[in-house]
């Protein structure tokens, strides 16, 4: 069946399943448990956004869950506000707390991030216990009201189930839509390689904070559901570090990055302890041992196990067949659109005009006592291919890193088209028209070829979180336009037909080409290439040389760091030579080849003569 036709049918089936469920399961005990597992599921969906999409560990999820629960409970019991708006307010307030966590953790990864989120969660819990005037302290809040639907109070577990289940459906839908959008790709790029994400024009700061905020908001809403159901009672000890750990275990058990997995994980870990209760005292031990066993034996979680099954592969293929991306690629092949090397739309300002595009004055970078780059002046002229060469350790890559904003120069000034960009963030520099590739390829390996090139266009597109979820016509048009351009880029470098291959499944040479296509997709005025020929065979190097000329012919200036001298001498209009962080020569290829100082730098001088 056609996927497009199937989608409303799937939705209808889900709605019917929700409507029928309380009729099938009549036990209030089990319905309360299911409601609880839905509350956990929503918190895990949030965790899946921050951890599974953006790759940032959060061990404070239970605290945000608690913030949501307390917000809604306090507003409804203290001020007597109706429940529905308070649940929304809980979503927003928890999101704001998420921003508060996001800001101090920006520069942190791994264990630092883990510890900070733990600390944040513990501080929040202590506030719940100690701010008695606000929260009632350890006694908690009792008699939290139920929501009303007209004159019907949704107090029974069976009626509240509808509130919980439809919330879950909506939030799951939103998080799945988000993943396959400009915002979702930016999250995945931050997870895949934060440094490359920055040089692709993604403001990693903003996206990390956004991920923390969304994650916390989800948790807050889940918490509000918890407060208004079950025992209608909350107290601080529920929102502990241990609970955050359990939420994390749920998300990881389900499969990191999979929304459905997060729900399955949350449901299992809520219901399994109930099933294990016959074990009496030891059930928590069995549960904990199970978590350890899952980590050891199921690296990809449940989603990882299921993903490889033939039926899952077939389902996925069928589902993807209906996606806008697949159809657009198929149509472009059928109509010959984007085939035949249509030129990259060159920047009008680039074409024709001469003069300096990039200017570097007195640039230096010191690492402690090591002067990696020590006062380099350099100019790159518009429309040329310039090479930056020098022996190992002469500071070439350090210069590229300063140009692209990864390093802040110790002193010196960099200006692009007259605009000073010294020390700006990588994504700002990319937006000014500078793109780069890396010596050791930094693709987003888990993503498709097409997604990699789409991420390259990040700074020229603008759909934010809300359009990415709601996907109005304007967002769909933007996506279609980006895909069209991505296909052109892939055609330009010769990777058509590989759109849906996973980037790290490509052979090495093609990965280099893909990195080029991704950089070109940002419409650069100048392209920085860090050893593009490294690891290529002779044929591939030939093709690369041809490609470099074609890129230059589109009016894009190239600054190249390369060790392959025949390539450098072949393509360069101008060469700058570095040694020990200082410029020792510059000029046309022929002059450089004969320069005695350059020869000495590469071959060394005899000690006696030095």
């Amino acid at each position: 069946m056609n996927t497009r036709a199937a989608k409303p049918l799937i939705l209808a089936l889900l709605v019917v399943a929700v409507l029928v469920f309380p009729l099938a399961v009549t036990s209030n005990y089990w319905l309360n448990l299911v409601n609880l597992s839905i509350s956990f599921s929503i918190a895990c969906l949030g965790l899946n956004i921050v951890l599974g999409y953006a790759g940032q560990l959060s061990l404070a999820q239970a605290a945000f869950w608690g913030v949501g629960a307390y917000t809604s409970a306090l507003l409804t019991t203290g001020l007597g506000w109706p429940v529905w708006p308070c649940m929304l307010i809980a979503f927003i307030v928890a999101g704001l707390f998420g921003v508060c966590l996001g800001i101090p953790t920006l520069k942190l990864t791994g264990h630092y991030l883990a510890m900070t989120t733990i600390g944040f969660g513990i501080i929040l819990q202590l506030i719940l216990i100690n701010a008695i005037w606000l929260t009632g302290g350890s006694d908690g809040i009792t008699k939290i009201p139920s929501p009303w639907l007209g004159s019907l109070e949704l107090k029974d577990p069976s009626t509240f189930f509808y509130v919980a289940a439809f919330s879950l459906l909506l939030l799951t839908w939103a998080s799945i839509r988000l993943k396959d959008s400009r915002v979702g790709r930016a999250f995945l790029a931050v997870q895949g390689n934060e440094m490359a994400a920055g040089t692709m024009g993604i403001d990693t700061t903003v996206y990390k904070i956004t991920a923390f905020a969304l994650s916390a908001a989800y948790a807050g809403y889940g918490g509000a559901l918890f407060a208004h159901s079950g025992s209608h009672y909350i107290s601080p000890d529920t929102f502990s570090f241990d609970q955050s750990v359990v939420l994390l275990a749920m998300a990881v058990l389900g499969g990191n990055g999979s929304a459905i997995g997060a729900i399955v994980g949350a449901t299992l870990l809520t219901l399994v302890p109930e099933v294990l209760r016959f074990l009496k005292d030891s059930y928590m031990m069995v549960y904990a041992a199970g978590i350890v066993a899952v980590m050891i034996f199921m690296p990809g979680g449940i989603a990882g196990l299921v993903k490889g099954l033939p039926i899952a592969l077939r389902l996925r293929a069928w589902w993807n067949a209906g996606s806008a991306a697949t159809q657009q690629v198929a149509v472009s092949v059928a109509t010959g659109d984007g085939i035949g090397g249509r030129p990259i739309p060159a920047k009008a300002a680039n074409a024709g005009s001469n003069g300096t595009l990039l200017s570097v004055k007195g640039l230096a970078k010191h690492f402690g006592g090591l002067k990696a780059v020590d006062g380099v002046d350099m100019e790159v002229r518009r429309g040329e291919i310039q090479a930056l060469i020098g022996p190992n350790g002469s500071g070439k890559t350090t210069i590229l890193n300063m140009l692209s904003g990864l390093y802040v120069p110790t002193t010196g000034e960099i200006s692009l088209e007259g605009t000073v960009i010294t020390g700006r963030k990588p994504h700002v520099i990319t937006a000014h028209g500078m793109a780069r590739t890396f010596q050791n390829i930094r693709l987003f390996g888990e993503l498709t070829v097409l997604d990699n090139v789409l991420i390259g266009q990040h700074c020229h597109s603008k759909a934010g979180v809300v359009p990415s979820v709601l996907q109005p016509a304007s967002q769909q048009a933007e996506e279609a336009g980006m895909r069209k351009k991505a296909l052109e880029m892939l055609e330009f470098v010769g990777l058509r037909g590989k759109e849906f291959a996973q980037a790290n499944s490509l052979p090495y040479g093609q990965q280099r080409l893909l990195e080029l296509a991704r950089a070109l997709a940002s419409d650069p005025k100048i392209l920085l290439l860090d050893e593009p020929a490294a690891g290529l065979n002779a044929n591939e190097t030939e093709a690369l040389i041809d490609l470099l000329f074609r890129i230059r012919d589109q009016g894009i200036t190239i600054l190249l760091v390369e060790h392959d001298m025949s390539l450098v001498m072949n393509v360069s209009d101008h060469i700058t030579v570095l040694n020990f962080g200082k410029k020792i020569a510059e000029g046309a290829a022929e002059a450089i080849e004969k320069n005695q100082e350059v020869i000495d730098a590469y071959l060394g001088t005899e000690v006696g003569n030095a």
Partner: protein
Amino acid sequence: MDLSINFQLATAGLAMGSIYALVALGFVLIFNAVSVVNFAQGEFVMVPAFVAVWLMDVLKIPFPLTYVITVIFMGVFGIVFQRIAYYPLRNRTFLPVIIATIGVSIFLKNAAQMVFGAEPFLMHRPTPPDVLKLAGVFIDPQYIVIIVCTLALLAFQYFFFEKTSLGKKMQATAQDKDMARLLGIRVATMIAITFAYSSILGAAAGILVGPIFYVTKEMGGMLGLKAFCSTILGGFGSVPGAILGGIFLGVIEVFAAFYISSGYRDAFAFIILILVLLFRPQGFFGEKIAEKA
């Protein structure tokens, strides 16, 4: 302010800080050896505390022998622990390892409850129970025991790592496993010994803190987290950093709890941690935390 109160607080802070330092050292040694953050480090304190109480109360074993048995037990415990929670996951990213260590921690807490019950125990003191009065200042003698024993352990550790062949092999393993292996060092054994030693540090902390804290299944949780804080404050991966970070945290916490708010006692460590990470992410003795291009 009353000087004698401050002196009393300082003693308590140094004692608490010594405990943090011991646990933090265990963290750092394991982290340096295998790049694993062990979230069960707090349970490395809780388990020996229970073991020691059980040996003393139930088997009526005298003090010195109890300590020896507990230390040996924890050495074996550390080796078993690494075999379960680290070894199968040694080639994986840090997330599954973190969760596995957390899983072990939950397991141990509940195992302790099942074996010893939910009632808190108070460990016997090796010293007379009377409070010492020195120049008008009241001091719990156990604080002195803690501080002196910690200093002795640190001296032993310095000697062990700097002057013995085994200590140097362990250091070599921590710095570069492949190179150590090429030099004929049994890397897996060194790692197992590191875990055992880290666990023995926990045993020391558990025995020392037992008489002033109640021995409960939860006693290790906050202790472990604060020790982790200490390592970050001192500069992650730095041995002197972990020790100074722990002592700093212990002292600050006791004073802040007394002068600012006792309800937020457990929050100060984390507030300081977040502030330090904001303004000086490398800690006092910093490792660099930026990725290389």
